[in-house]
C-alpha cells in the first residue's frame, strides 16, 4: 500500500491504496464516487472516462501510482467545470436509456468541447467513441450539435 495524493473535482485528497489500483477503483471504492462506471476494464467501452489533467482518459487503465499529484475531474464535478449545459441537454433531449454509459459519454463530450467549439461529425466519431448498448447514438450526436449551437450563440452574445 502507498499513499497517493490526487486533486479530484478541485479537492485535494489522499488515499492509501496498492500502487497498481486503477484510478477507476480508487474513485469508486476508496473515494466513494460511483458516478464513474466500470464497463470493461480494458479501455474499450469508455464508461469509466474521466478528465485527467484536462484530457479524456479511461480510468480503468491508469494506475494510481502513475498519476499521483494529478488533477482529476469526474462526472460528479462536471457541472462545476462547464458541463452543466451538456447535463441539462442530456435530460431535456431524453438522450439516455439505461444511462449506465452516459457519464463516460458526457465526460468524453465535455473534453471534446475543450478542443473544438463546433465539432464536426467526424470529430464526434473519433472523440466520443464510447459504447452504448441501448443505441442512444443518434441522440448523443443531436445533443452535441445542439450544445455546440448554444455555446456558439452564448459566445456571440458575450
Amino acid at each position: 500500500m502507498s499513499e497517493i495524493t490526487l486533486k479530484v473535482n478541485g479537492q485535494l485528497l489522499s488515499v492509501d491504496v496498492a500502487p497498481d489500483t486503477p484510478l477507476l477503483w480508487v474513485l469508486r471504492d476508496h473515494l466513494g464516487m460511483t458516478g464513474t462506471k466500470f464497463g470493461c476494464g480494458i479501455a474499450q467501452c469508455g464508461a469509466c472516462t474521466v478528465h485527467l489533467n484536462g484530457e479524456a482518459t479511461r480510468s480503468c487503465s491508469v494506475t494510481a501510482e502513475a498519476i499521483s499529484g494529478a488533477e482529476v475531474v469526474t462526472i460528479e464535478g462536471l457541472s462545476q467545470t462547464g458541463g452543466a449545459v451538456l447535463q441539462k441537454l442530456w435530460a431535456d433531449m431524453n438522450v439516455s436509456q439505461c444511462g449506465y454509459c452516459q457519464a463516460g459519454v458526457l465526460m468524453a463530450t465535455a473534453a471534446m468541447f475543450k478542443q473544438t467549439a463546433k465539432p464536426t461529425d467526424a470529430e464526434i466519431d473519433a472523440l466520443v467513441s464510447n459504447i452504448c448498448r441501448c443505441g442512444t447514438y443518434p441522440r448523443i450526436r443531436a445533443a452535441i450539435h445542439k450544445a455546440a449551437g448554444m455555446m456558439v450563440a452564448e459566445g456571440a452574445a458575450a
Partner: protein
Amino acid sequence: MSEIDRRSFLITSGLFSGGMALGVAPASAAEPKDGTSHAPWATDGSGGVEMHPWISIAPDDIVTIRVPTPEVGNGAATQVAMNVCEELQCDWSKVRIEFASVRRDYLEKGIYTVGRQPMFSGHGTDPERMKMALQLGASARERLQRAAAFRWKVWQDEIDAKDSVLTHRPTGRTLRFGEVAAEAANVLVYNEPDMKSEAEWTFLGKASPFKLTAPAIADGSAVYGIDVKVPGMVHAALKQCPVHGGKLKSHDPKVVLGMPGVRAVVVVDPAKSRGVPKGLTNPVGMGMILTTAQSGVAVIADHYWQAKKALDALPVEWDLGPGGKFADEKAVYAQGKAALAKGKGPVIRARGDVSSVKGGKVLDASYATPWCENAAMEPLNGTAMVTADKCEMWVPAQDQHAALWVAVDETGLMPDKVDMHQTLIGGAFGRRTASDDVRMVVAVAKEYPGVPVKVIWSREETMAQGRFRTPIMTRFKAVLDKEGMPEAFTAHTILGGLIAMMSSLEDSPYVVSGAIPNAEISSTFLPYHVQTGAYRGPCYNSHSFMVESFIDECAAAAKIDPLDYRLRLIDKWDPAWGVVLKTAAAKADWGKPLPKGEGRGIAIANWPNAGLRKNGTTVCCVVHVAVSRSGALSVKQVDLAFDCGKIANRDAVAAQLEGAVIFGLNSVINEEITLKNGAVVETNFDVYPMMRIGDVPPVINIHFDALSGDDRFQPVGEAPVGPVAAALGNAIFAATGKRLRQTPFRKARLNWT
C-alpha cells in the same frame, strides 16, 4: 387482481418500508441529492402520507409513486407514474418514483401484482396495470377533493383539481394537495370515481416528458446495482467454471489469503441451494425454474480490486464436465446440420398437406444464427447479506418476483425473511430476467454470513457466463405455384437451451392466415451445455430474420417485387400489416432506382403475437445499403413504420425504436459467441465488436403514420429487433445478388463485379 381492492384504500399506515428512492431531484431539503453518500433505498413516502401502497403525498406536494416496474432504460417506470398522474391531476414536476417493494407485495398479498409479468421491467402500458394506475390516480384525486369539500363545507363537485391544486370554483379558494393529503388519506370512497375517456386525456399520448431518471443519470448520482453502498460492506470477485455445467475440482486458498485486504475464499456449490420451504409455491412462475447455482469460487476482500487480483492469482482446477468435449462451436452445430440433412423433426404445426404439392419451382435453403451475448454495459453484480434467518439484497433485477423467489430457493428462507431493494439497471435486454445472477450473489453471501457482500463479475466473467441468445438453424423448403406464390412451405428448425420459442415461425401469418395453403413446421432439439436465456425478443429475432429472408428468396425466384409479394400474402389477412408495409416502403422511396451497388430491403414482423390479428406490435423495416465492389458495407438509411395500436408517450416510443434498430444491426452484423473446448472465446469488447457512434446509419427514420389506433398500447422494445436483420440481408441481396443466410454478416464476403 384486475379490480382494485377497495379495502386497501383504508390502509394509511407507513409501517412497511422497502421502496427505493431513485436519485432524482430531492423530495425534500433533508434528502441528500448525492446518490453516493447515502443508502440508495429509502423508507416509503419521503415523509408523505400514504394514499395507497402505490401513492404517497407529502406536505410539500411531492407525490411519490411506487412503481412495480424496474427501470431498465425503456422508461417503463416513468410511464407507470405518468399513468397515475393523468388521473391524479398532479403537477408532473412534483412526481418522484420509487421501486415498489416485492417483500411488501408478498406481505400485503399482491398489492403490486397486477397484469402480465407484474414486477418485470417492461410493459409500462400493460392493459390491466395501466387501468389500475389510472384508477388509483382517480381515487386519490377524488379523496383529495372530498377532503377539501369537508374543510370548506362546500359541495365536492364545485372543486376542481389541477396541477396539484384544488380550487373551489364559486369562491376561487385554493388548497394544495399537500395541505389536505392527511385528511384525504382517511376518506373512504365507496364507489370508485369515473375515469376520463381517453379523448379527455391531457397528459398521456400528448406529453413526452424526459424520464424521471434522466437528471440523476446526467449528474452521476443515479444508483445502479454496482453503486450500492451498505455500511460494513465487503467486495467479492467471482469465477465460475468457464465451461458451463463444469465443477470446481480444486483450489488453493492459502496462496491468496495473505494478500492485502483479502478476507476469505468461498466456494459456491450448487448442491448447497436449500430449496423453497416445503408447502410454498412460487405464485408468479418464472425465475426459479430457469436457474440453478453454478459451481464457482469467490475471493472476498475489503475492496474490489484486491478481490480481483487475488482471484486472478488463485490456483483453480475445474472438472469441465460434458461440455468440455466440444472442441469448438462447430462441433455443436454439426449435430444440428446432421439433423437438418436427415429430414423433418417432430411436427409442431401443419396446415393442408405439403406432400400433396407436386411440380412447381422448389426452393431449399438453410439459415443459422449463433449464440450472442446481451452485453449490457453494467457488468453483472449484486449485494446481499445473509444470516441464519434473514436475507437482505440490493440488486439490479429485471423481474423482482423472480429475484425474490430465487433468493428464497437459494437460502431456504420464507419469503417474508427476504428483503429486496431494487436498484437502477445498467441495461439487460433479457439478461437479468431469470435472476441466475441474483442467485450467485446470494450463494456467495451465504458463505460469508452476517456481512453485506457486493459481488462483481468482471466483464470477462459476465461474458463467459452469459445466458446467450439461443442459436437456431432452420431449413426451409417452398414450392411456388404458377403465379410464383408459395403453395407449400416447410420449415425444420433446430434449437435447444432453456429458451426455445417459436414466435414468428410457428405463428407466422404466412402460415396461420392460410395464404400459403400447405405448411408444415417441425422442430428438433439441439443438445449442448451452453446456457441460454432471453435476448431482446427471444428466438423471435432469429425466426424473423430467417422467415423474412426466405420469403424474400421466394419473391426473387418468382421475379415479384418483395413489397408486392408480402402484400399479396398478408394484406387481406390483416390490412393493418399492409398499412405498415406500405408506409415504411413509401417513406423509404421504395422502388426509386438506385445506383449499382446499392439496394433496399424490406421485412416485417410482430412481437409477441404475429399469428393474431390486431395484436402485438407490427414493425416493418426498410434498409438502404451501399456495398463497394470490394465488399465494404455501409447502411445509408433505415426507415421503420410500426403499429402497436396506440402510444402513450411518443418520444419514449421513438427512443426505443431507434435503439432497437441499432441493437438489431449490431446483432446481425457483428455478434457471435464461439467456443474453444467448451468454453466461451469472446469475453470482452476487443473481440466482441460493438457499433459505436461512427458506425451508426446516418439516417434512422421512425414513422408514426402506420399506427392503427386500435385499442391497445403494446410494448415496443422487442418488436423492432425482428425485421431489422432480414431487411439488411434483403438489401444486401438487392445490392449485390448475394443472399446471406448466416449471421454475423461481418464474416461474409460481399464483393461484386
